[in-house]
């Protein structure tokens, strides 16, 4: 019963094995990819392990406080940014091993040529509530 965040990176992660940009795939390959991800989420909901998942647009901006009485500073968008997050999924599983197993499965989503992408997914545990019995 621990929650993990699975992060998909556009860039910044090590290269996937089947590393072909999505716009070079056929429409059927894209459909297969999307279907795989949706089925994956559906299956996790049925096993009681799904918490949430969203896709993110690649464009974003950096925002910063700029002093009393002044509007926040924005910068970007940074198309060249090395690390962009494409989307995330939160799972709630019984063990770290199960989290790794599911991340591995998600990384096998089909890409170009219908072959698994073998992309790197970042797996991060959530910080939890402290247990009552600690002392």
């Amino acid at each position, binding site marked *: 019963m621990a929650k993990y965040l699975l992060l998909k990176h556009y860039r910044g992660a090590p290269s996937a094995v089947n590393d072909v940009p999505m716009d070079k795939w056929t429409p059927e390959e894209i459909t297969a990819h999307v279907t795989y991800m949706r089925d994956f989420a559906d299956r996790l909901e049925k096993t009681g*392990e799904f918490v949430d998942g969203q896709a993110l647009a690649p464009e974003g901006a950096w925002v910063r406080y700029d002093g009393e009485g002044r509007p926040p500073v924005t910068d970007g968008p940074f198309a060249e940014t090395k690390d962009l997050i494409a989307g995330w999924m939160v799972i709630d599983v019984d063990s770290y091993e199960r989290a790794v197993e599911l991340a591995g499965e998600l990384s096998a989503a089909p890409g170009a040529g219908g072959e698994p992408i073998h992309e790197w997914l970042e797996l991060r545990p959530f910080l*939890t*509530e402290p247990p*009552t*019995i600690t002392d």
Partner: protein
Amino acid sequence: MNEELLRSLTPSVLGILVRRGADFAAAEDAVQDALVKAVRVWRDDPPRDPKGWLVTAAWRQFLDAARADTARRRREDLVEEEPAPGPAADVDDTLRLYFLCAHPSLTPSSAVALTLRAVGGLTTRQIAEAYLVPEATMAQRISRAKRTVSGVRFDRPGDVATVLRVLYLVFNEGYSGDVDLAAEAIRLTRQLAASIDHPEVSGLLALMMIHHARRAARTAPDGSLVPLAEQDRGRWDTRSIAEGIEILRGALARDRLGEFQAQAAIAALHADAQTAAETDWVQIVEWYDELTRLTDSPVVRLNRAVAVGEADGPRAGLVALASVDDSLPRHTAVAAYLHECDGDLATAARLYAEAARKAPNLAERDHLTRQAARLNARSDT
């Protein structure tokens, strides 16, 4: 309409249906249906025997559903063999439900969810909120659990240790959402203790009550963690502590020591001290020795090292710590604390910072970061 009453009757009614041979999932549906009827009918026409009323209504509903079912023949045969509805020894039936929900074929999280649903009578939404997952996900978790135990017949008692582990998990989940899971775990364990004669059930109940009694003092108003030694003991719930200790005494007198009784004994020794300085660390170390003998758990040996540090000095604590696997969560935090007690502030500060990075939860991370900052600020001046 007394919601408390309905909730307290639900598990035994469910237990009776399961004992009579109803499939778990079907029994639960039938009981839910009966509860809805009760809410509608009881206001104008309260029954003299609410439980008997619910059993009858639920059993009728189960029969109706069973007749409509494809497996109708088999179930009707089953029904023929069963006795007519009537009052039954509810204690045994609730007990059966505890063991069914803690069945070894279930994962811990499924067992917890099913126990809260079937024995605790919580709604799926309440359980989902407590565990911060979507209601649909929790509904699936519960229905999978029900499928897993469907067809399991309970003619012999299961493993008490498994049931206790499930209740301990619920307790340690603390609380979030509108259900206080710690209080719920105490309620369920109390109910279990009333229906089963086992010193470890009392041990767990005592442990939970003593820890729960300190809850108000465990966190500052801003939500930050207050370590045991710094807690305002005036805020401890002394009545709950006294009751916990009384329950523990009764269990220990039976001379069948177990893990939970030993842990409760340690908690009781902490709770007994008027001030942190008056803590009887020598006796606490002795209880940790018992615990090590019972469990040989590395976590226990880690906690023992802390106690040894208090009883015999930080050097002795560090020696005890040296034999504990250093990959354990909190190992670094303990090492930091013992080094600080020993006067090696630079090492302590470095270890606190390292422990903060490895902390499994936010409250501990903030606490450890503050410890590191406190020592660093001191060594700068």
